[in-house]
């Protein structure tokens, strides 16, 4: 009977601890931010490579190890050790809009941002076919 009580107390304690951790993590995500400046890259027409000098700023609630991830190709852009804020500048090159995320050591996205690629001329493609006159 005493062992049963001990087990119940242990389960409650463990549940509370896990809930607390999740709440803490959710709080961290809620207070994290990833900002891209500027956000839009303008190319002349659809499908053209777009170039943009981008600066990324981020901050989180807790200091930790974080990495900036290009979500489109899942590649690491850069990482920081035991930091709760950071900045990084790089040349964006892309033919389509690209999502970025700030990931903690568990691989969870704590903040997200996007570089939007837009075009002036929205090309459409004619169909390739044979002669249509005859």
């Amino acid at each position, binding site marked *: 009977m005493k062992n049963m009580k001990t087990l119940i107390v242990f389960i409650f304690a463990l549940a509370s601890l896990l809930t607390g951790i999740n709440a803490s993590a959710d709080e961290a995500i809620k207070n994290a931010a990833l900002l891209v400046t500027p956000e839009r890259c*303008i190319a002349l027409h659809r499908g053209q490579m777009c170039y943009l000098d981008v600066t990324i700023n981020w901050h989180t609630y807790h200091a930790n190890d974080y990495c900036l991830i290009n979500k489109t190709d899942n590649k690491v852009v850069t990482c920081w050790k035991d930091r709760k804020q950071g900045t990084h500048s790089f040349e964006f090159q892309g033919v389509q809009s690209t999502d970025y995320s700030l990931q903690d050591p568990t691989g969870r996205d704590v903040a997200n941002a996007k570089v939007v690629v837009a075009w002036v001329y929205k090309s459409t493609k004619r169909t*390739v076919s044979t002669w249509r*006159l005859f």
Partner: protein
Amino acid sequence: MQQSFKSYFLALSAFCLSMVASQTLAKDIGQTLRDNSIESGFHNNYIELGMQAFYGTGPTFSETSDHIAIINIIINGSYQWDDFFIEMHGEDARGLSLGYNAWNSENWSFDILASDSFGQSQYENRLWARQELKHWRDGGNWIVGGRLMGYFGNNMVQFTLQHDATNDHKGNLASLVLGRSWQLRNWNVHSMIGVEFGDEKLNNFFVGVDKRRASYYDLPRYKSGNSISYSAEIGVTYPISEDWVFKAATRVTSLDDSIVDSPFYQTKKSSAVSVRTSINYVF
């Protein structure tokens, strides 16, 4: 009489300064290169309104000036319904083109088109021509024919063969243009070289002096021959935003003696050079 003569000179100056160049550097290949969108079958449906500053120098019909400088509004546009299309590119002053895309392959495209462009391709001062020059205003402008375009990576070739559709002069025009476009970050650079042949019927309609014109303008009679001219252009296009585009280009054109020797030309030069720049709003 004097006023008409002056108007005629101004209009014909425009012909000399730009017509040959514009014809040689046709708008279709020109627009494709400026868009840096060399790919067989790509078509843009759009209309844009621009403010353009233009400066051109060359042989003119004026005794006192060999250059033209203007700021004007230009309209560029293109729209396609199935295989039919309509194009207008004011920066080339080529007027209106109505066409039918008859054939496409991986690297080639062939259009049949009618253009209201021959007599109105004087972007330097085409308004003068339209308003003052009766035979340019009333006839000889519509030409029909075909254009064959080839796309090879960043390079493009265009061949056109066109004939007078109005039966006013029954002239013929042929041109071959080679072009290339490339990207320097978001700057789009293009270059073109071209050669154009105009037959004597066409040239005489615009710069010839027959008995009637000789009497009216008090000029010696002049019969033009066939002409061959060469052109080259280099320019840039930059997307400022999703709605605004900046363009700039310079062009040089050699002019055939059979055109410049016309007595309408008071300032005679064997080449014309122009520079233009514009800001365009894309709808």
